[in-house]
Structure formats: C-alpha cells, structure tokens
C-alpha cells in the first residue's frame, strides 16, 4: 500500500510542480479593457531595419522623438523579417503586439482584414498624406481603412557589369526604360563561353513574377478579400515565359541561377560570370560592398513590357486596433515619415522612400551614384497590385504558385501545365 501511494505521489510531482510554478507566478488578471491613455505614455516600436546604417538611423529617429516628446516615450525593439508574421499572429491573439508595427503591406493585409489594425486615416496629417502618391496609399488601404503608413519601396532592377557589356559590343541603354526584348537581345549578345548574359536568382519566384507582372498588365486576381478569383492569362504568364525563353531557348540566362537566391547570384555577378543580373534594388548594397577593385557596374533603366509598371509592396508602419495609444503611435509614425528620417532609413537599406521629398533627400545625399539615380526613378512606375487585397494570396503563393513556378523554371513542365496548376491550385486554396 505504501508503495502504491508513493507511486501516485511521485507520478503527480511533475504536474504539481508545474502548477505550483505557474500559480506562484500568477498575480491579478490582466485588464483587457484599456481605455484611451491619459498622461505620459510609453510606446513600443518593433523595427525590422536590417542594414547597420538603417538600424542606426532608426535609433536616431526614436532618440530625436523621445527628446522632443517627454510625455510619449518610444521604446525601440528589434525584430526580424524572417519571423515577424509568426510573432504577430500570437501577439495579436494575446493583445501584446507592439504599439508601432514594422512589416510590409502584403503581410499586414490579412491582419487588417481580421480587424487587428487601427485605421490611421484620421491621424495622418494632410501634408504627410500628400507627400506619398495615392497609388502607394492604396496598397495599404483595406476595406476603406488606411491600416498602415507606407515607408519604403523596392523595385526589381537590372544590374549590369559595364565592362562585360562593352566587351560584347552592347551599348548601355540610355532611354527612360529598358524593354524586355532589349534585355533579351543584350543578354544573348553578351553571352560567351565563359559568361552568361544574365543571371537571375529566382529560388522564390512568385514575388518577382507578380511584382514584375504589371509590366505586361498582369492582374493575377479579380475582386478582393475572400471573394477574389484568380486570373491566369497570357499577360500573367508573360514574365515567366520570357525568363524561360532566355534560359532554355536563347541560352543567355544561366538556368542554375534560377534555383539560387538573389544574394547568391551576386557572387557570380561580381566574379564576372554574368554580364547582368535582375534583382531587388537593395542588392546594390551587396554589390557595392563586395565589388573587387576596378569592377564597374551600373543600374540599367527600369524594365518595361507594355509599361514599366511594377507592383508596389511597401514596407509599413501600423498600429494595433486595441492599442490605447493609437493617436500617439500615429504621431510617432508621422515623425518617422518626415523626409529626412525616411531618407536616412531608405539610404541605409538601399530602398526607395515613398515620399518625393525623401527621394530628393536621398538623391542629394548620394549624388545619384551607385545606381541610386535609376533605382529612385523606378518609384514613378509602382502601382497597386490586386494580389495585396486577396486574403488567400499568401497561401496560394507558398503552396501553389512557388512550387509550380519552380517546376516551370526548372524546365520540368510546360507553359500550359503551369497555367493549369496555378488556376487549379487556387481552387484548392480558395475552397
């Protein structure tokens, strides 16, 4: 009997231990019904600034704010792009999200639709609103609410090894745009036994394909929210078709690069294995840092099909709907959006600031060198993309579009099969 009692006691030790620990730490329940803040408040700002100059610029923005607003203190914390979505899912559920959330418009649309983000429209001054093009504001407008302030933008640009192009007799384009036909011709001409004309890191191809899709007026989706439907026509398939053609028909694009990331391809570019690469504008930082002595490079004019349009997917600053300090958080966001601040962060990340005044400041600071001139010019071509308002887009992107495009760009399936897989896959995802 003694043994049995002891057994029961011992088996309960683990459960009791955990319960005691939790119980000992428990205090009063948390008040979920917080009203608007009065008196001094403290805000938390989770920044995703990545490059060191951008991290420093963000810290300075916060320090300047705190010095000027002793009654509204901002505590800066550092997050990571890789994990922000998972983090926000739980933080919104638990009501512990930061007062100012750094993310991107494609990611926050789902949270906004679930009602987690505050409408900033009443709190954004007219001057700040006017400084950013309406098309960019549209990218952060969900169900008529302005759920974020758009801060930085990325475009896909063509980086060129000017020496290799000149050796191949390719004249550097000087027009306002570079057509896809001209890109294909230049890549073909620059291809030699030792170097390919083009490298393109497309390990995750969907973002690039839908981002450059507006070059050919691709929509990908009609409608919005839960009622959206997919559209996969010739326009939507034009970007992958042209990439595939350069890789497997022209032989001017290295197929291996299609399986690599953008940063991987830069190494081969700097090693002289590619005359050109297509990548996000931020890659310029890596090129600048790693370029060997004497390496000459430039950013070519924006790519254009029927237009030079690209999908705008701006980085954003949002405020949780349940924050008791929405007005104060919005005031800090407005401070962040001021031209000099936005310019400093954009320059650090090698991205495009959303306001024209901030772009001017970057131009002044950089003199348009290191590709900044062509990169900043791309801002005029950014348009709202339909996919950003589609609730199931992230799921379709990860589960359907990315693997299907990877198979197509590995020459495993043909274009009609790609079309079928993208369309049928949407039916699975959308139910």
């Amino acid at each position, binding site marked *: 009997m003694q043994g049995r009692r002891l057994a029961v006691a*011992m088996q309960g030790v683990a459960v009791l231990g955990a319960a005691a620990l939790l119980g000992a730490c428990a205090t009063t329940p948390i008040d979920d019904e917080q009203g608007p803040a009065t008196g001094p408040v403290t805000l938390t700002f989770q920044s995703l600034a990545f490059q060191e100059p951008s991290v420093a610029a963000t810290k300075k923005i916060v320090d300047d704010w705190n010095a000027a607003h002793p009654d509204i203190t901002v505590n800066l914390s550092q997050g990571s792009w890789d994990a922000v979505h998972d983090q926000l899912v*739980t933080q919104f559920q*638990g009501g512990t999200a930061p007062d100012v959330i750094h993310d991107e418009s494609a990611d926050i649309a789902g949270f906004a639709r679930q009602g987690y983000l505050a409408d900033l429209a009443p709190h954004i001054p007219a001057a700040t609103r006017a400084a950013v093009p309406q098309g960019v504001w549209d990218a952060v407008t969900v169900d008529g609410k302005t759920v974020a302030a758009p801060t930085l933008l990325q475009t896909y640009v063509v980086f060129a090894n000017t020496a290799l192009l000149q050796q191949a007799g390719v004249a550097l384009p000087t027009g306002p745009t570079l057509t896809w036909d001209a890109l294909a011709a230049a890549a073909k001409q620059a291809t030699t036994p030792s170097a390919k004309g083009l490298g393109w890191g497309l390990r995750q191809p969907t973002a690039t394909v839908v981002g450059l899709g507006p070059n050919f007026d691709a929509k990908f989706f009609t409608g919005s929210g839960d009622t959206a439907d997919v559209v996969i026509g010739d326009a939507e398939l034009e970007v992958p078709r042209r990439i595939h053609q350069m890789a497997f028909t022209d032989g001017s694009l290295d197929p291996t690069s299609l399986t690599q990331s953008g940063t991987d391809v830069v190494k081969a570019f*700097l090693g002289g294995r590619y005359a050109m690469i297509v990548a996000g504008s931020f890659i310029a930082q890596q090129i600048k840092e790693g370029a060997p002595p004497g390496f000459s490079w430039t950013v070519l004019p924006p790519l254009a099909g029927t237009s030079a349009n690209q999908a705008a997917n701006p980085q954003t600053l949002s405020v949780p709907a349940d924050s008791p300090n929405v007005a104060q958080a919005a005031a800090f966001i407005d401070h962040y959006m001021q031209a000099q601040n936005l310019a400093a962060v954009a320059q650090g990340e090698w991205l495009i600031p959303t306001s024209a005044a901030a772009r001017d400041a970057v131009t002044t600071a950089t003199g348009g060198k290191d590709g900044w001139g062509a990169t900043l010019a791309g801002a005029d071509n950014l348009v709202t993309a339909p996919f950003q308002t589609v609730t199931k887009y992230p799921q379709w992107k990860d589960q359907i579009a990315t693997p299907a495009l990877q198979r197509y760009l590995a020459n495993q399936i043909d274009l009609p099969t790609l079309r079928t897989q993208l369309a049928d896959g949407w039916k699975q995802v959308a139910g």
Partner: protein
Amino acid sequence: MTARRAGQYVALLAYLVFLAFPLLWLLSTAFTTPAELARAGSGLLPGAPTLDNFVDVLQRRNLAGAAWNSARVALGATVLVLVMALPAAYGLACFRTRLKVVANGWVLVSQVFPVILVVIPLFLILRQVRLNDSLVGLTVVHAVYALPFALWMLQGYIAAIPRDVEEAGVMDGAGRWRVLWSIMAPLLAPGLVATAMFTLISSWNEFFFALVLIQSDTKETLPLMLARFVGAEGQVQLGALAAGALLAIVPSLLFFAAVQRRLTSGLLSGAVKG
C-alpha cells in the same frame, strides 16, 4: 598495415571530413570579411582573416547578454526537468498502477501535437499569469516541453537497474525515498547526465517559443539574436552570423566535454558485477 585496415582509416577519415566540414566552413566564415564573403571564388580559408565579425556581435549586438539569458533559461529548465522527471520516472517505471498506463499514454500523446498548434493557447495562458515576455515563463515552457521525452529517457534507465539493488536497500531498512535518493539516483547518474544534456541543448537551441514569448530586446535569447542576422529576400549578414553561431556553440561543447567522462564512466559502473 593491411589493405583492409588502410581502407578502414580512409573511410574513417572521409567520415570525419564529412562531419567536420560544416564546422570548418563556419569557422572560416566567422573570420572572413563581409566584402570577401560577397565575392565569388573565395576559398575555404579567409584571404585576410579578421576579428571584425566577433567585435560586431560582441560589442554592437549584445551577444553576451543574449548568451546569459539563454544560459539562465537552459539551466533553469534543466534543473526543473531533473527535479520533476526523476521521481515521476521512478514511479512510472517501478510501480504497477493504472495511472502508469494513463500517464505514459498522455506523455506519448503530448508529443504528437505540433508546436504551432499549442503556441497560441500557451501564449494566452502565460499572458494571464503575466509570464509572457519573461525568462521565468520561457524556462517553465522549455521544461514542460522537454519533460515528456525526459520521462521516457529516465524510465528506460531506471528499468535497466536490477531490482535486486533496490530490494537490498529495502532489506537493510531504507524507505522508498531513501532508496530513490541514496541508491537509485547515484546509479542513474548516466541517465541523469544524458537527460540533463538533452534538456540543456534543447533549451539552448530553442527558437520558436522564445520568438513568441519574448518581446524585450533585453530578454532575447541566443537563437533570437542570431535570427536577426537574416533579412528579407535571402539577405544574410553571413560573417556576423557565423561568428555569433560559433560563439553560441562553445558553451555546448564545454558542457559536453565536462560531462562526457561522467556519462561513460557511469555506464561502466555496473551495480551488481563481481
């Protein structure tokens, strides 16, 4: 040396190279400048070795603070697991009760649930008791997460100890607790060390719970800090990441080196031999 023996050495060498290569690459990357890492064709050995990556992670990224947080959480979780798992495993291994079947079944079932499924309810519970954004909360979570497997491990070790030893203690007048702490626990040293190693390493490396529960920079653990070297769209600060990762594995290596002898010697000290 026979050809057969030579072949064995070659195979062993190849296996060692296979195992060591990632570590060598990490070592090399940690001492390579970002500019060299960005260029193609850089070899395994850095062209101009530098300590800048280590200076970066230690001075500007607060690696030491994150390591201290990780150490506190990992040690706390390890102690909690050992204190809870030893008596519980002893009870489950030695006594035949209906609770044993239920408890073992529950332990097994608890391992089936994916982390992503439990993390939101767990987060809400911890928030209610104000243990979110708390190293104490993270310690409890890591302990609870490691406990089921620790129970299974220790049950196996306890079952392997001959009952004669236990009965001899009882014959000499020792009670159950005395038997457990004075006879079983020393014989279980290898099992306890192995369990401690498992728990410590699991907690030291754990990322997802820490990501969800910890919000303050001052409370971030090592895996969280290292994750911040990875940016959007495949951007990685490779040199700093390698330097941080290299420093992060040093405590694990030291711990293994310290307990390895204890682990093997304990296994050899048979209780009923002779």
